[in-house]
Protein backbone atom coordinates (compact mmCIF):
# COMPACT_ATOMS: atom_id res chain seq x y z
CA UNK A 1 0.00 0.00 0.00
CA UNK A 2 1.37 3.39 -0.94
CA UNK A 3 1.23 5.69 2.05
CA UNK A 4 2.82 8.76 0.49
CA UNK A 5 3.09 9.79 -3.11
CA UNK A 6 4.50 13.07 -4.30
CA UNK A 7 3.81 14.16 -7.87
CA UNK A 8 5.72 16.83 -9.77
CA UNK A 9 6.31 18.89 -6.65
CA UNK A 10 8.03 22.26 -7.04
CA UNK A 11 8.77 24.55 -4.11
CA UNK A 12 10.02 28.11 -4.52
CA UNK A 13 11.54 30.69 -2.20
CA UNK A 14 10.90 34.36 -2.68
CA UNK A 15 14.34 35.96 -2.49
CA UNK A 16 15.85 39.34 -3.30
CA UNK A 17 17.17 37.92 -6.54
CA UNK A 18 13.73 36.67 -7.53
CA UNK A 19 12.08 33.29 -7.37
CA UNK A 20 14.44 30.52 -6.33
CA UNK A 21 13.20 27.05 -7.18
CA UNK A 22 14.67 25.00 -4.36
CA UNK A 23 12.75 21.87 -5.28
CA UNK A 24 12.05 21.35 -8.95
CA UNK A 25 9.46 18.93 -10.26
CA UNK A 26 10.18 15.93 -8.09
CA UNK A 27 8.09 12.78 -7.82
CA UNK A 28 8.51 9.83 -5.50
CA UNK A 29 6.39 7.44 -3.51
CA UNK A 30 6.75 5.47 -0.33
CA UNK A 31 5.14 2.14 0.56
CA UNK A 32 3.73 1.52 4.01
CA UNK A 33 6.38 0.30 6.45
CA UNK A 34 9.29 1.04 4.13
CA UNK A 35 12.09 3.57 4.34
CA UNK A 36 13.24 6.12 1.78
CA UNK A 37 16.46 8.09 2.06
CA UNK A 38 17.23 11.49 0.57
CA UNK A 39 20.88 12.24 0.14
CA UNK A 40 22.61 15.27 -1.31
CA UNK A 41 24.78 18.23 -0.44
CA UNK A 42 23.72 21.20 1.61
CA UNK A 43 21.42 23.47 -0.37
CA UNK A 44 20.11 20.72 -2.64
CA UNK A 45 16.57 21.01 -1.28
CA UNK A 46 16.34 17.89 0.84
CA UNK A 47 15.31 19.72 4.02
CA UNK A 48 12.78 21.78 2.04
CA UNK A 49 11.07 18.53 1.06
CA UNK A 50 10.99 17.44 4.70
CA UNK A 51 9.50 20.76 5.75
CA UNK A 52 6.87 20.58 3.00
CA UNK A 53 5.83 17.12 4.22
CA UNK A 54 5.33 18.60 7.70
CA UNK A 55 3.61 21.78 6.48
CA UNK A 56 6.38 23.82 8.06
CA UNK A 57 7.66 25.75 5.06
CA UNK A 58 8.89 29.24 6.01
CA UNK A 59 6.79 32.24 5.10
CA UNK A 60 8.77 33.18 2.02
CA UNK A 61 8.39 29.70 0.58
CA UNK A 62 5.44 28.24 -1.28
CA UNK A 63 4.46 25.10 -3.14
CA UNK A 64 4.43 26.23 -6.76
CA UNK A 65 2.90 23.14 -8.27
CA UNK A 66 2.43 19.46 -7.69
CA UNK A 67 0.63 17.26 -5.21
CA UNK A 68 1.46 15.47 -1.98
CA UNK A 69 -0.90 12.52 -1.52
CA UNK A 70 -0.97 11.10 1.99
CA UNK A 71 -3.66 8.64 3.13
CA UNK A 72 -5.97 9.74 0.34
CA UNK A 73 -5.65 13.48 0.96
CA UNK A 74 -3.71 16.16 -0.89
CA UNK A 75 -1.48 17.85 1.68
CA UNK A 76 -0.33 20.57 -0.70
CA UNK A 77 -3.69 22.32 -0.31
CA UNK A 78 -4.00 21.98 3.44
CA UNK A 79 -4.76 24.99 5.59
CA UNK A 80 -2.90 25.56 8.84
CA UNK A 81 -5.94 24.28 10.77
CA UNK A 82 -5.95 21.01 8.84
CA UNK A 83 -2.21 20.66 9.31
CA UNK A 84 -2.59 20.94 13.07
CA UNK A 85 -4.72 17.81 13.09
CA UNK A 86 -2.21 15.59 11.35
CA UNK A 87 1.13 17.15 12.27
CA UNK A 88 2.60 15.06 15.08
CA UNK A 89 -0.29 12.62 14.93
CA UNK A 90 -0.10 11.16 11.43
CA UNK A 91 3.21 12.61 10.27
CA UNK A 92 5.95 13.46 12.75
CA UNK A 93 9.45 14.77 12.41
CA UNK A 94 12.70 13.88 14.13
CA UNK A 95 14.67 17.11 14.23
CA UNK A 96 18.38 17.53 14.64
CA UNK A 97 19.19 17.81 18.37
CA UNK A 98 21.79 20.49 17.80
CA UNK A 99 19.11 22.69 16.30
CA UNK A 100 17.55 23.42 19.70
CA UNK A 101 14.58 21.18 19.10
CA UNK A 102 13.97 20.98 22.85
CA UNK A 103 12.70 23.92 24.88
CA UNK A 104 15.31 24.69 27.54
CA UNK A 105 12.84 25.93 30.18
CA UNK A 106 10.55 22.89 30.27
CA UNK A 107 11.29 19.44 31.65
CA UNK A 108 11.82 16.81 28.93
CA UNK A 109 8.91 14.70 30.18
CA UNK A 110 6.53 17.66 30.06
CA UNK A 111 7.51 18.48 26.51
CA UNK A 112 6.81 14.95 25.32
CA UNK A 113 3.56 14.85 27.31
CA UNK A 114 2.49 18.00 25.49
CA UNK A 115 2.75 16.17 22.18
CA UNK A 116 0.43 13.45 23.56
CA UNK A 117 -2.14 15.72 25.20
CA UNK A 118 -2.40 18.06 22.21
CA UNK A 119 -3.79 15.27 20.08
CA UNK A 120 -5.59 13.37 22.87
CA UNK A 121 -7.00 16.11 25.12
CA UNK A 122 -9.32 13.70 26.96
CA UNK A 123 -6.58 11.33 28.09
CA UNK A 124 -6.26 10.99 31.87
CA UNK A 125 -3.01 11.99 33.57
CA UNK A 126 -2.29 8.39 34.50
CA UNK A 127 -2.62 7.25 30.93
CA UNK A 128 -0.37 10.05 29.71
CA UNK A 129 2.22 9.00 32.29
CA UNK A 130 1.96 5.38 31.19
CA UNK A 131 2.50 6.40 27.62
CA UNK A 132 5.51 8.52 28.64
CA UNK A 133 7.06 5.56 30.43
CA UNK A 134 6.56 3.35 27.39
CA UNK A 135 8.19 5.98 25.16
CA UNK A 136 11.17 6.44 27.47
CA UNK A 137 11.67 2.68 27.62
CA UNK A 138 11.42 2.46 23.87
CA UNK A 139 14.22 4.96 23.30
CA UNK A 140 16.15 3.58 26.28
CA UNK A 141 16.28 6.62 28.53
CA UNK A 142 15.89 5.72 32.24
CA UNK A 143 12.48 6.74 33.58
CA UNK A 144 14.20 8.61 36.41
CA UNK A 145 15.48 11.18 33.90
CA UNK A 146 11.97 12.11 32.80
CA UNK A 147 11.80 15.24 34.93
CA UNK A 148 15.26 16.52 33.96
CA UNK A 149 15.78 19.64 31.92
CA UNK A 150 17.31 19.36 28.44
CA UNK A 151 20.66 20.83 29.56
CA UNK A 152 21.09 17.88 31.92
CA UNK A 153 21.04 15.48 28.96
CA UNK A 154 23.98 14.49 26.80
CA UNK A 155 23.78 15.00 23.02
CA UNK A 156 22.77 11.40 22.40
CA UNK A 157 20.07 11.50 25.09
CA UNK A 158 18.63 14.70 23.64
CA UNK A 159 18.39 13.01 20.28
CA UNK A 160 16.64 10.04 21.91
CA UNK A 161 14.19 12.40 23.63
CA UNK A 162 13.45 14.04 20.27
CA UNK A 163 12.81 10.60 18.78
CA UNK A 164 10.45 9.83 21.68
CA UNK A 165 8.61 13.09 20.99
CA UNK A 166 8.17 12.19 17.34
CA UNK A 167 6.82 8.77 18.29
CA UNK A 168 4.46 10.14 20.95
CA UNK A 169 1.27 9.61 18.92
CA UNK A 170 2.47 6.56 16.95
CA UNK A 171 2.55 8.39 13.60
CA UNK A 172 2.22 6.53 10.32
CA UNK A 173 5.03 8.46 8.70
CA UNK A 174 8.18 9.81 10.32
CA UNK A 175 10.45 12.33 8.62
CA UNK A 176 13.98 12.31 10.09
CA UNK A 177 16.06 15.32 9.08
CA UNK A 178 19.79 14.78 9.73
CA UNK A 179 19.10 13.17 13.12
CA UNK A 180 22.72 12.18 13.72
CA UNK A 181 24.68 15.00 12.14
CA UNK A 182 25.79 16.63 15.38
CA UNK A 183 26.69 13.35 17.10
CA UNK A 184 29.97 11.49 17.14
CA UNK A 185 30.32 8.10 15.47
CA UNK A 186 29.67 5.94 18.53
CA UNK A 187 26.45 7.72 19.52
CA UNK A 188 25.46 7.93 15.85
CA UNK A 189 25.68 4.17 15.61
CA UNK A 190 23.41 3.77 18.66
CA UNK A 191 20.82 6.23 17.34
CA UNK A 192 20.73 4.67 13.87
CA UNK A 193 20.18 1.22 15.39
CA UNK A 194 17.46 2.68 17.59
CA UNK A 195 15.67 4.24 14.62
CA UNK A 196 15.85 1.02 12.60
CA UNK A 197 14.63 -1.07 15.52
CA UNK A 198 11.67 1.22 16.26
CA UNK A 199 10.74 1.53 12.61
CA UNK A 200 10.50 -2.27 12.37
CA UNK A 201 8.72 -2.67 15.70
CA UNK A 202 6.07 -0.03 14.98
CA UNK A 203 5.88 -0.76 11.25
CA UNK A 204 6.25 2.92 10.48
CA UNK A 205 7.13 4.48 7.17
CA UNK A 206 10.31 6.51 7.29
CA UNK A 207 11.78 9.33 5.26
CA UNK A 208 15.39 9.83 6.22
CA UNK A 209 17.30 12.93 5.13
CA UNK A 210 21.08 13.14 5.40
CA UNK A 211 24.15 14.43 3.63
CA UNK A 212 26.07 11.31 4.66
CA UNK A 213 25.60 8.54 2.11
CA UNK A 214 26.80 5.81 4.46
CA UNK A 215 24.27 6.80 7.13
CA UNK A 216 21.46 6.68 4.57
CA UNK A 217 22.75 3.34 3.31
CA UNK A 218 22.66 2.02 6.86
CA UNK A 219 18.99 2.90 7.47
CA UNK A 220 17.09 3.01 4.18
CA UNK A 221 15.89 0.48 1.64
CA UNK A 222 15.33 2.96 -1.17
CA UNK A 223 17.44 5.97 -2.03
CA UNK A 224 16.86 9.26 -3.85
CA UNK A 225 19.99 11.20 -4.74
CA UNK A 226 19.35 14.93 -5.04
CA UNK A 227 21.31 17.63 -6.77
CA UNK A 228 20.34 21.31 -7.01
CA UNK A 229 16.65 20.77 -6.29
CA UNK A 230 16.16 17.76 -8.49
CA UNK A 231 16.22 14.04 -7.90
CA UNK A 232 18.96 12.78 -10.21
CA UNK A 233 18.87 9.09 -9.40
CA UNK A 234 16.55 6.80 -7.50
CA UNK A 235 16.42 3.11 -6.82
CA UNK A 236 17.02 0.52 -4.15
CA UNK A 237 20.06 0.89 -1.93
CA UNK A 238 21.91 -1.83 -3.84
CA UNK A 239 21.14 -0.35 -7.24
CA UNK A 240 22.11 3.22 -6.39
CA UNK A 241 25.21 2.50 -4.34
CA UNK A 242 26.50 -0.64 -6.06
CA UNK A 243 25.92 0.36 -9.67
CA UNK A 244 25.46 4.15 -9.70
CA UNK A 245 24.65 5.51 -13.15
CA UNK A 246 24.27 9.28 -12.82
CA UNK A 247 27.59 11.17 -12.94
CA UNK A 248 26.73 13.04 -9.73
CA UNK A 249 26.02 9.84 -7.77
CA UNK A 250 29.34 8.50 -8.99
CA UNK A 251 31.15 11.65 -7.82
CA UNK A 252 29.43 11.47 -4.45
CA UNK A 253 30.36 7.83 -3.95
CA UNK A 254 33.90 8.21 -5.25
CA UNK A 255 34.70 11.04 -2.84
CA UNK A 256 33.37 9.18 0.18
CA UNK A 257 36.08 8.10 2.59
CA UNK A 258 35.81 4.64 4.06
CA UNK A 259 38.12 2.47 6.10
CA UNK A 260 38.58 -0.11 3.37
CA UNK A 261 40.84 1.42 0.82
CA UNK A 262 41.53 4.89 -0.41
CA UNK A 263 43.26 4.10 -3.65
CA UNK A 264 40.23 4.75 -5.81
CA UNK A 265 39.26 7.98 -4.04
CA UNK A 266 38.39 10.64 -6.57
CA UNK A 267 38.91 14.30 -5.71
CA UNK A 268 36.48 16.42 -7.73
CA UNK A 269 37.56 19.86 -8.86
CA UNK A 270 36.02 22.83 -7.15
CA UNK A 271 32.30 22.41 -7.65
CA UNK A 272 30.22 25.28 -8.87
CA UNK A 273 26.79 25.73 -7.41
CA UNK A 274 24.26 26.20 -10.18
CA UNK A 275 22.08 29.28 -10.00
CA UNK A 276 18.60 28.19 -9.06
CA UNK A 277 16.90 31.52 -9.70
CA UNK A 278 15.20 32.09 -13.04
CA UNK A 279 14.38 29.41 -15.55
CA UNK A 280 16.99 26.99 -16.67
CA UNK A 281 16.01 24.00 -18.74
CA UNK A 282 19.42 22.36 -19.16
CA UNK A 283 21.01 19.78 -16.91
CA UNK A 284 21.94 21.43 -13.63
CA UNK A 285 24.95 19.21 -13.10
CA UNK A 286 26.41 20.00 -16.53
CA UNK A 287 28.87 22.64 -15.18
CA UNK A 288 30.52 20.05 -12.97
CA UNK A 289 29.90 16.96 -15.08
CA UNK A 290 32.77 15.14 -16.70
CA UNK A 291 30.65 13.75 -19.51
CA UNK A 292 31.72 14.76 -22.98
CA UNK A 293 28.33 15.62 -24.38
CA UNK A 294 28.09 19.22 -25.60
CA UNK A 295 24.38 19.81 -25.40
CA UNK A 296 23.83 19.00 -21.71
CA UNK A 297 23.78 22.63 -20.63
CA UNK A 298 20.89 23.33 -23.04
CA UNK A 299 18.99 20.08 -23.45
CA UNK A 300 16.52 19.14 -20.79
CA UNK A 301 17.53 15.85 -19.20
CA UNK A 302 14.96 13.09 -18.95
CA UNK A 303 14.36 10.04 -16.83
CA UNK A 304 16.09 6.93 -18.09
CA UNK A 305 14.70 3.66 -16.77
CA UNK A 306 17.45 1.23 -15.90
CA UNK A 307 15.40 -1.41 -14.10
CA UNK A 308 11.82 -1.39 -12.83
CA UNK A 309 12.97 0.42 -9.66
CA UNK A 310 16.18 2.14 -10.71
CA UNK A 311 16.22 5.30 -12.82
CA UNK A 312 18.50 8.23 -13.52
CA UNK A 313 17.86 11.80 -14.69
CA UNK A 314 20.36 12.51 -17.44
CA UNK A 315 20.74 13.61 -21.06
CA UNK A 316 22.92 10.66 -21.91
CA UNK A 317 20.44 8.20 -23.41
CA UNK A 318 22.98 5.40 -23.55
CA UNK A 319 23.48 5.58 -19.76
CA UNK A 320 21.88 2.23 -19.05
CA UNK A 321 23.97 0.35 -21.58
CA UNK A 322 27.33 1.80 -20.66
CA UNK A 323 29.53 0.00 -18.18
CA UNK A 324 29.94 1.99 -14.99
Amino acid at each position, binding site marked *: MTILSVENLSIGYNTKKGLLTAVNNISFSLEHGRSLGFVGESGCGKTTIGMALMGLLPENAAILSGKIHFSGEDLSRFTEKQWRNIRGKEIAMIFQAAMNALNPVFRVGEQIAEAITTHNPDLSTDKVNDRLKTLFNMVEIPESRMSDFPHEYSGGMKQRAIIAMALACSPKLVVADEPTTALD*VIVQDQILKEIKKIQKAMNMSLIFISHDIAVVAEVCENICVMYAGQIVEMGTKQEVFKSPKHPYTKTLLASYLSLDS*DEDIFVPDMMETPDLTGINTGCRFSVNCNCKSKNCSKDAPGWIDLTSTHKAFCCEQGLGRKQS
Partner: protein
Amino acid sequence: MTELTKKNRFIIELKGIVKEYSPQKSFFSKCDNRVIALNSIDLGIKKGEIFGLVGQSGSGKTTMGRLLVKLEQATHGTIFLNGNPVTNLTGKALNNYRSRVQMIFQDPYQSLNPYLSISETILEPLNVHKIGNNDQRYEKVIHTLETVGLSPGKEYYDRYPHQLSGGQRQRVAIARAIVLEPEFIVADEPTSMLDATIAIQLFRLLTQIRDKFNMTFLFITHNLAAAKYLCDRIAVIHEGNIVEINTADEIIQNPQHPYTKKLIQVQPGFHFN
Protein backbone atom coordinates in the same frame (compact mmCIF):
# COMPACT_ATOMS: atom_id res chain seq x y z
CA MET B 1 71.41 8.83 21.19
CA THR B 2 72.51 12.03 22.84
CA GLU B 3 70.14 14.13 24.82
CA LEU B 4 70.13 16.85 22.17
CA THR B 5 69.19 14.76 19.13
CA LYS B 6 66.60 12.97 21.19
CA LYS B 7 64.94 16.30 21.89
CA ASN B 8 65.08 17.40 18.28
CA ARG B 9 63.35 14.37 16.85
CA PHE B 10 59.99 15.99 17.34
CA ILE B 11 58.85 19.44 16.33
CA ILE B 12 56.16 19.39 18.99
CA GLU B 13 56.39 17.30 22.08
CA LEU B 14 54.09 16.96 25.06
CA LYS B 15 55.38 15.55 28.32
CA GLY B 16 53.09 14.59 31.17
CA ILE B 17 50.38 17.03 30.12
CA VAL B 18 47.45 17.15 32.54
CA LYS B 19 44.50 19.48 32.14
CA GLU B 20 41.91 19.75 34.85
CA TYR B 21 38.84 21.91 34.84
CA SER B 22 37.41 22.81 38.21
CA PRO B 23 33.90 24.22 38.29
CA GLN B 24 33.74 27.73 39.67
CA LYS B 25 32.71 27.75 43.27
CA SER B 26 29.44 29.52 43.67
CA PHE B 27 26.56 29.72 46.07
CA PHE B 28 24.63 27.04 44.20
CA SER B 29 27.41 24.58 43.48
CA LYS B 30 27.02 21.40 45.45
CA CYS B 31 30.50 19.96 45.14
CA ASP B 32 33.89 20.69 43.67
CA ASN B 33 34.20 17.74 41.32
CA ARG B 34 37.16 18.39 39.11
CA VAL B 35 37.02 17.22 35.52
CA ILE B 36 40.21 15.71 34.20
CA ALA B 37 40.15 16.53 30.49
CA LEU B 38 43.63 15.25 29.75
CA ASN B 39 45.39 12.72 31.92
CA SER B 40 49.18 12.62 31.65
CA ILE B 41 49.63 12.86 27.88
CA ASP B 42 53.02 12.05 26.32
CA LEU B 43 53.18 12.62 22.61
CA GLY B 44 55.64 13.68 19.93
CA ILE B 45 54.87 14.95 16.43
CA LYS B 46 57.55 14.77 13.75
CA LYS B 47 58.43 17.52 11.32
CA GLY B 48 56.36 17.45 8.14
CA GLU B 49 53.92 14.92 9.50
CA ILE B 50 50.12 15.02 9.48
CA PHE B 51 49.27 13.58 12.85
CA GLY B 52 45.69 12.48 13.53
CA LEU B 53 44.00 12.70 16.91
CA VAL B 54 40.82 10.64 16.90
CA GLY B 55 38.23 10.40 19.65
CA GLN B 56 34.63 10.82 20.69
CA SER B 57 33.04 14.06 21.87
CA GLY B 58 34.32 14.86 25.32
CA SER B 59 37.48 12.78 24.95
CA GLY B 60 39.73 15.82 25.33
CA LYS B 61 40.89 16.12 21.74
CA THR B 62 39.89 19.75 21.31
CA THR B 63 41.38 20.61 24.72
CA MET B 64 44.68 19.26 23.46
CA GLY B 65 44.48 21.44 20.34
CA ARG B 66 43.73 24.50 22.45
CA LEU B 67 46.64 23.76 24.77
CA LEU B 68 49.01 23.53 21.81
CA VAL B 69 48.09 26.95 20.44
CA LYS B 70 48.13 28.25 24.01
CA LEU B 71 44.52 29.26 24.19
CA GLU B 72 44.57 27.32 27.46
CA GLN B 73 47.21 26.61 30.05
CA ALA B 74 48.04 23.05 31.09
CA THR B 75 47.62 22.20 34.77
CA HIS B 76 50.79 20.10 34.80
CA GLY B 77 53.38 19.10 32.25
CA THR B 78 55.44 20.74 29.56
CA ILE B 79 55.04 21.39 25.83
CA PHE B 80 58.20 21.63 23.71
CA LEU B 81 58.56 23.29 20.31
CA ASN B 82 61.77 22.18 18.59
CA GLY B 83 63.05 21.03 21.97
CA ASN B 84 62.40 24.33 23.77
CA PRO B 85 59.81 24.44 26.53
CA VAL B 86 56.99 26.83 25.65
CA THR B 87 54.63 26.23 28.55
CA ASN B 88 55.40 29.41 30.45
CA LEU B 89 56.02 31.84 27.62
CA THR B 90 54.84 35.41 28.08
CA GLY B 91 55.09 38.72 26.26
CA LYS B 92 57.21 38.85 23.13
CA ALA B 93 58.23 35.21 23.32
CA LEU B 94 54.57 34.17 23.43
CA ASN B 95 53.81 36.45 20.48
CA ASN B 96 56.60 34.82 18.54
CA TYR B 97 55.30 31.36 19.43
CA ARG B 98 51.85 32.29 18.19
CA SER B 99 53.25 33.29 14.82
CA ARG B 100 54.79 29.82 14.51
CA VAL B 101 51.78 27.82 15.64
CA GLN B 102 48.36 28.44 14.11
CA MET B 103 44.90 26.92 14.29
CA ILE B 104 42.07 26.13 11.86
CA PHE B 105 38.75 25.97 13.66
CA GLN B 106 35.83 23.66 13.13
CA ASP B 107 33.04 25.90 11.98
CA PRO B 108 33.84 28.29 9.11
CA TYR B 109 30.45 29.92 9.64
CA GLN B 110 31.53 31.11 13.08
CA SER B 111 35.30 31.42 12.94
CA LEU B 112 35.28 34.23 10.36
CA ASN B 113 34.27 37.70 11.49
CA PRO B 114 31.30 38.73 9.32
CA TYR B 115 32.32 42.41 9.55
CA LEU B 116 35.76 41.83 8.08
CA SER B 117 36.34 41.36 4.38
CA ILE B 118 38.41 38.39 3.23
CA SER B 119 41.47 40.57 2.78
CA GLU B 120 41.13 42.11 6.26
CA THR B 121 40.77 38.65 7.77
CA ILE B 122 43.96 37.41 6.17
CA LEU B 123 45.82 40.70 6.69
CA GLU B 124 45.20 40.66 10.43
CA PRO B 125 47.97 38.18 11.35
CA LEU B 126 50.41 40.14 9.15
CA ASN B 127 49.44 43.40 10.86
CA VAL B 128 49.64 41.93 14.35
CA HIS B 129 53.12 40.54 13.75
CA LYS B 130 54.20 43.64 11.75
CA ILE B 131 55.37 41.77 8.67
CA GLY B 132 56.21 43.68 5.47
CA ASN B 133 54.88 47.01 4.20
CA ASN B 134 51.45 47.55 2.66
CA ASP B 135 52.41 46.46 -0.85
CA GLN B 136 54.15 43.35 0.37
CA ARG B 137 51.19 42.47 2.53
CA TYR B 138 48.82 42.90 -0.40
CA GLU B 139 50.97 40.62 -2.55
CA LYS B 140 51.16 38.11 0.27
CA VAL B 141 47.37 38.01 0.70
CA ILE B 142 46.76 37.56 -3.03
CA HIS B 143 49.39 34.86 -3.17
CA THR B 144 47.98 33.02 -0.14
CA LEU B 145 44.43 33.17 -1.53
CA GLU B 146 45.67 31.53 -4.70
CA THR B 147 47.58 28.91 -2.72
CA VAL B 148 44.34 27.81 -1.03
CA GLY B 149 42.58 27.57 -4.38
CA LEU B 150 40.69 30.87 -4.35
CA SER B 151 41.98 32.20 -7.64
CA PRO B 152 42.17 34.75 -9.03
CA GLY B 153 42.91 36.17 -5.59
CA LYS B 154 41.81 39.67 -6.62
CA GLU B 155 38.28 38.44 -7.13
CA TYR B 156 37.98 37.31 -3.51
CA TYR B 157 40.02 40.16 -1.99
CA ASP B 158 37.13 42.50 -1.19
CA ARG B 159 34.40 39.96 -0.60
CA TYR B 160 32.77 39.25 2.74
CA PRO B 161 32.26 35.82 4.36
CA HIS B 162 28.51 35.76 3.64
CA GLN B 163 29.26 35.89 -0.10
CA LEU B 164 31.17 32.63 0.09
CA SER B 165 30.09 29.00 0.39
CA GLY B 166 31.06 26.86 3.38
CA GLY B 167 33.97 25.26 1.54
CA GLN B 168 35.28 28.63 0.36
CA ARG B 169 35.02 30.02 3.89
CA GLN B 170 37.07 27.17 5.25
CA ARG B 171 39.65 27.90 2.53
CA VAL B 172 39.81 31.48 3.83
CA ALA B 173 40.31 30.13 7.37
CA ILE B 174 43.14 27.97 6.05
CA ALA B 175 44.64 31.01 4.26
CA ARG B 176 44.54 32.95 7.55
CA ALA B 177 46.36 30.10 9.29
CA ILE B 178 49.12 29.70 6.70
CA VAL B 179 49.74 33.36 5.81
CA LEU B 180 52.48 33.62 8.47
CA GLU B 181 54.01 30.38 7.19
CA PRO B 182 53.91 28.75 10.62
CA GLU B 183 55.75 25.56 11.44
CA PHE B 184 52.82 23.82 13.04
CA ILE B 185 49.06 23.97 12.45
CA VAL B 186 46.30 22.54 14.60
CA ALA B 187 43.25 21.70 12.45
CA ASP B 188 40.28 21.03 14.72
CA GLU B 189 37.67 19.06 12.73
CA PRO B 190 38.05 21.39 9.74
CA THR B 191 35.58 19.48 7.56
CA SER B 192 32.94 18.21 9.96
CA MET B 193 30.51 20.93 8.81
CA LEU B 194 31.10 20.31 5.11
CA ASP B 195 29.83 17.87 2.52
CA ALA B 196 31.93 14.89 1.50
CA THR B 197 32.76 16.26 -1.96
CA ILE B 198 34.00 19.53 -0.39
CA ALA B 199 35.80 17.81 2.48
CA ILE B 200 37.89 15.68 0.16
CA GLN B 201 39.02 18.80 -1.74
CA LEU B 202 40.14 20.41 1.52
CA PHE B 203 42.07 17.28 2.48
CA ARG B 204 43.90 17.48 -0.82
CA LEU B 205 44.61 21.15 -0.14
CA LEU B 206 46.04 20.42 3.32
CA THR B 207 48.31 17.75 1.83
CA GLN B 208 49.48 20.18 -0.87
CA ILE B 209 50.26 22.83 1.76
CA ARG B 210 52.18 20.29 3.82
CA ASP B 211 54.26 19.32 0.79
CA LYS B 212 54.84 22.90 -0.34
CA PHE B 213 55.83 24.48 2.97
CA ASN B 214 56.89 21.34 4.87
CA MET B 215 54.42 22.25 7.59
CA THR B 216 53.38 19.92 10.36
CA PHE B 217 49.72 19.32 11.13
CA LEU B 218 47.74 18.03 14.06
CA PHE B 219 44.43 16.90 12.56
CA ILE B 220 41.68 16.48 15.15
CA THR B 221 38.65 14.46 14.10
CA HIS B 222 36.07 11.93 15.22
CA ASN B 223 36.04 10.33 11.79
CA LEU B 224 38.53 7.50 11.60
CA ALA B 225 38.13 7.18 7.83
CA ALA B 226 39.14 10.82 7.31
CA ALA B 227 42.13 10.38 9.62
CA LYS B 228 43.20 7.29 7.72
CA TYR B 229 43.02 9.12 4.40
CA LEU B 230 44.93 12.20 5.52
CA CYS B 231 47.29 11.21 8.31
CA ASP B 232 50.66 9.52 8.58
CA ARG B 233 50.20 8.51 12.19
CA ILE B 234 47.08 8.39 14.36
CA ALA B 235 46.58 8.59 18.12
CA VAL B 236 43.28 7.38 19.56
CA ILE B 237 42.18 9.31 22.63
CA HIS B 238 39.57 8.09 25.08
CA GLU B 239 38.45 9.94 28.22
CA GLY B 240 41.62 12.00 28.39
CA ASN B 241 44.02 9.11 27.84
CA ILE B 242 45.81 8.21 24.64
CA VAL B 243 45.00 4.53 24.26
CA GLU B 244 46.84 3.75 21.03
CA ILE B 245 49.37 5.41 18.71
CA ASN B 246 50.45 3.87 15.46
CA THR B 247 50.78 4.49 11.73
CA ALA B 248 47.43 5.11 10.05
CA ASP B 249 47.38 1.78 8.21
CA GLU B 250 48.35 -0.23 11.27
CA ILE B 251 45.65 1.38 13.44
CA ILE B 252 42.93 0.39 10.97
CA GLN B 253 44.23 -3.01 9.96
CA ASN B 254 45.60 -4.14 13.27
CA PRO B 255 43.89 -2.27 16.12
CA GLN B 256 45.09 -3.32 19.56
CA HIS B 257 42.95 -1.43 22.04
CA PRO B 258 39.27 -2.44 22.45
CA TYR B 259 38.21 1.20 22.09
CA THR B 260 39.94 1.50 18.71
CA LYS B 261 38.20 -1.70 17.63
CA LYS B 262 34.88 -0.24 18.68
CA LEU B 263 35.53 2.97 16.70
CA ILE B 264 36.23 0.90 13.61
CA GLN B 265 33.16 -1.23 14.15
CA VAL B 266 30.71 1.68 14.42
CA GLN B 267 31.92 3.42 11.26
CA PRO B 268 28.82 3.57 9.03
CA GLY B 269 29.25 1.69 5.81
CA PHE B 270 27.52 0.01 2.92
CA HIS B 271 26.38 -3.38 4.07
CA PHE B 272 24.53 -5.06 1.23
CA ASN B 273 22.73 -8.21 2.17
